[in-house]
């Protein structure tokens, strides 16, 4: 699973937010994307999942079974290829319970057609099992009810993405708004799946200790361009990163 962007630019009016010659995600397992505020990290995530249309450039996905151009795809088609992104801002379905929200995400679109209206039962045991496993792994206030706090909604957002079993998961600031211990359980769960070879992950984070602890490879984005890439230790000791980001 390799997601590759080439000559990718995004400009609002005359102001260029992203300008990347070439970058590859998903080649290394668990990757980090770091950079100062306003570096264009979230815009880049939006561009990769086709929620934002690029000004120019191509995005392609090598699924192992052939290379797929993502440019002509709509956002739902990108998701169906296996490229899923968690949200930085809190998002959710207010009228669905935690379990229903997860069941929805776990249900393949082909099972949601008109014939499902007359189906005998709603969800397969397989889906119910997956949902139960996720819900019980975390301390929701009301596991059979709705997500209550901002933190629960944020957690639910991440779980919703995980249960779709993506091939490449983009996580946009997963720690923001989550308690430390929950973040760790989530990241441990993610790492397990990566190690098992189920998926690849890109984490966008400001929390550098978390990046150093979990990531196998780190991309450094500044002013819309990738300035440095390497193993965590290389990035940590890199002069450009230190100057531009860590204010040394």
């Amino acid at each position, binding site marked *: 699973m390799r997601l590759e962007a080439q000559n990718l630019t995004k400009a609002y009016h005359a102001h260029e937010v992203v300008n990347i010659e070439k970058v590859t995600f998903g080649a290394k397992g668990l990757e980090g994307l770091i950079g100062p505020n306003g570096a264009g990290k979230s815009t880049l995530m939006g561009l990769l999942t086709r929620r934002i249309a690029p000004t120019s450039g191509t995005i392609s996905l090598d699924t192992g079974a052939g290379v797929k151009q993502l440019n002509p795809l709509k956002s739902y088609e990108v998701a169906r290829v296996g490229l*899923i992104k968690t949200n930085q801002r809190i998002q959710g379905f207010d009228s*669905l319970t935690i379990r229903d929200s997860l069941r929805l995400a776990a*249900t393949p679109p082909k099972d949601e*057609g008109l014939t499902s209206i007359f189906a005998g039962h*709603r969800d397969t045991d397989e889906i119910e099992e997956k949902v139960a496993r996720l819900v019980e792994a975390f301390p929701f206030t009301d596991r059979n009810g709705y997500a209550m706090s901002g933190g629960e909604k944020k957690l639910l957002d991440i779980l919703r993405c995980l249960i779709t079993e993506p091939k490449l998961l983009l996580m946009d600031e997963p720690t923001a708004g989550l308690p430390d211990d929950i973040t760790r359980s989530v990241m441990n769960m993610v790492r397990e799946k990566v190690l098992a070879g189920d998926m690849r992950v890109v984490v966008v984070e400001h929390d550098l200790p978390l990046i150093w602890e979990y990531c196998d490879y780190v991309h450094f984005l500044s002013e819309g361009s990738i300035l440095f890439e390497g193993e965590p230790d290389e990035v940590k000791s890199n002069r450009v990163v230190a100057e531009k980001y860590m204010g040394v």
Partner: protein
Amino acid sequence: MDYLIFSFSLMLVYIGLAQLLHIQFGLAGIPNFGVVGFWGIGLYGTGVLYVVFGVALLPAILIASALSAIIGYLLALLVLQRSGQAILAATLALSAIIATLVVSEKDLTGGVQGLGTIKFPFGDMANRNFVFMIFILVVVLALVWVSARLRDSRMGRQLVAIRDNEELAASLGKNTAATKRWVFAITCGGMGILGGMSAPLHQFLVPYQLAPSITFAVWIALVLGGKGHNLGAIVGTFVTFGLFDILIETYAPVPAEQAILLPNFKLFCYGVLLVVIIMFRPIGLLGTDGPKVRQPAAKGAET
């Protein structure tokens, strides 16, 4: 007795329309302000096919409602991915176009002179109007059953998700645009069927029957009963149409000189009911069954 059967048949039609609107707006969040347009395509489509082209009633109803579904699909292609207010205006405009075309295309529709007569099916059977009422009842009950199934189904869950946050649903791989389009087209086709079944009830069709007040009567009934409740349409229609058009109009001792104002009084009361319910119980009399509904507030709330 015939008049009562007519009123009850018409009430069943209104329940059916409100039930379909419950699916469109209550579940999928599509504000269709052109209910009378799709119903009208069914009504006049059936009338024209039956009277001008000599098609038998039941096939005429089916063809006309297919037309209604196709027009619903085309309109959905054009505006369904736009904001709610744009959808509302476009559907309202469509119903105005239908009403205008019915007046202007005299050769087919008879224009303001009207179009008739459309007879009940079932040949010479006595009590044909009663049998037809039962026929409508069966159709409407089937509709209520299907919409209850829909609410609890995987597709219904997807509709609710789309209503709550379409962008998020799309990012999870749901083809939200196509789902909405099909649901809208099929429910518009359903409105067409109800329109077609109204043709023999009215027997004689005139453009006045396509007044936008039908759309609003259906909306009022649904909002009053509870847009998110599967029985909201039924309860709402009983409280509005049942109370005013059947109970009061048939049984209340209204002096003749005041009788002419009665429809206006009815619509005045509808207005008051609607204002009171939205101010004090916006979820409707029955509230919400199944998934709860939360709304973003309009601009200008002084918190």
